[in-house]
């Protein structure tokens, strides 16, 4: 053959052209999924803590109410992480010798705070207020998942804006009666939507989607 290309060139050329176009589309779609994937959001990733505190044991097992430790969840923006004192209320009586708890006892002895790793970490420019959500009937479980089944703690939701917005736009899909807010494994007595709509009226829930609702 004395011409520049041989027969196969045609197939190669056409395939590379079409294939290239398809590849670009595929990568774009993967990118969209990647942005929402757990390793970007950090969801469902176990967070190691100085003390391997088990919510499964304390909440699921012993049935301690959320508010026993997270005291300000219904009164302030911040749900509060309990001071060492709170742990010692019980653990000055029980599991006195457990090596697990040595960091706690040490903290109490030395007055040096325990240093926990943050699990639910919103960006600085997002201003979230626990108390209002609790007041309006958003269950702990709705965002934090089945804490009562978490031996090790992890973030149950993506915490991305689109995730927040889903509820802010349609609260009726998620609301529960105030008395059930701290309940784990809650099941609506009946159709969630009808119950939700009633609660929206009852609690005067505004679906706020203004930017300054969360960003200042």
């Amino acid at each position, binding site marked *: 053959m004395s011409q520049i290309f041989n027969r196969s060139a*045609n197939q190669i050329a056409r395939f590379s052209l079409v294939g290239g176009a398809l590849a670009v589309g595929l990568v774009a779609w993967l990118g969209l999924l990647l942005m929402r994937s757990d390793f970007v959001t950090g969801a469902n990733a176990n967070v190691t803590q100085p003390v391997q505190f088990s919510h499964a044991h304390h909440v699921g097992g012993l049935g301690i109410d959320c508010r026993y430790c997270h005291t300000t969840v219904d009164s302030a923006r911040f749900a509060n992480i309990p001071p060492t004192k709170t742990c010692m209320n019980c653990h000055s009586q029980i599991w006195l010798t457990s090596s697990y708890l040595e960091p706690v006892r040490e903290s109490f002895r030395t007055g040096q705070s325990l240093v926990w790793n943050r699990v639910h970490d919103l960006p600085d420019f997002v201003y979230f207020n626990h108390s209002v959500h609790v007041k309006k009937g958003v269950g702990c479980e709705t965002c934090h998942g089945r804490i009562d089944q978490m031996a090790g703690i992890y973030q149950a939701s993506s915490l991305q804006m689109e995730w927040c917005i889903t509820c802010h*736009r349609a609260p009726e899909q998620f609301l529960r009666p105030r008395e059930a807010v701290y309940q784990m494994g809650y099941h609506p007595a009946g159709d969630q939507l009808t119950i939700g709509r009633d609660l929206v009226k009852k609690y005067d829930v505004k679906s706020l989607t203004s930017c300054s609702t969360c960003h200042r």
Partner: protein
Amino acid sequence: MADTLLYGLMAEFTSTDALVSAAERVHQEGYTRIDALTPIPVHGLAEAMGYDDRRIQKMILAGGLFGCAAGLGLQLHVNLIGWNINIGGVYLSGYPLNVGGRPLVSLPAFIIPTFELTILFAALTAVIGTLALCGFPEPYHPVFNVKRFRERGSTDGMFLCVEAEDPKFDAAKTRDFLKGLGARGVYDVEP
């Protein structure tokens, strides 16, 4: 059919006019698998061989209309769809917002992106469509096997090619016939 060693025969002519008349004759002769190859567009040449392809216009029109719809649709969607839409884990809602007290659907403002997308898609269709209709990319083609064509084909050579696939094709007869049309030379085209 007759000679499988041959893709076809190629005759070279000296002027566009000669080429056009030759093409007409070949066409009238009943040849169907013929093609003329010129370094410049010669009007009436394709018609002379009975080719009249008008698909590209329609494709471009369709592309333009699609762009128009996509552009306007996107803007309306973004400014109106205030509820949750989630497709394959990707969130596709819009976000209606009060922007400077303007209405959600500010059509005058939306005209421009709509217009631009119309043009964009029409233009893309034009080019992609052309490639598709011409069967490009096609870097290999038997005609390039003809040395004379490689040398002059894109400079000043006027060629007429009759393919062996043509039912009326017969190596000897067709060669004589082409010679008879005043071809400057006739060459075998290897497959």
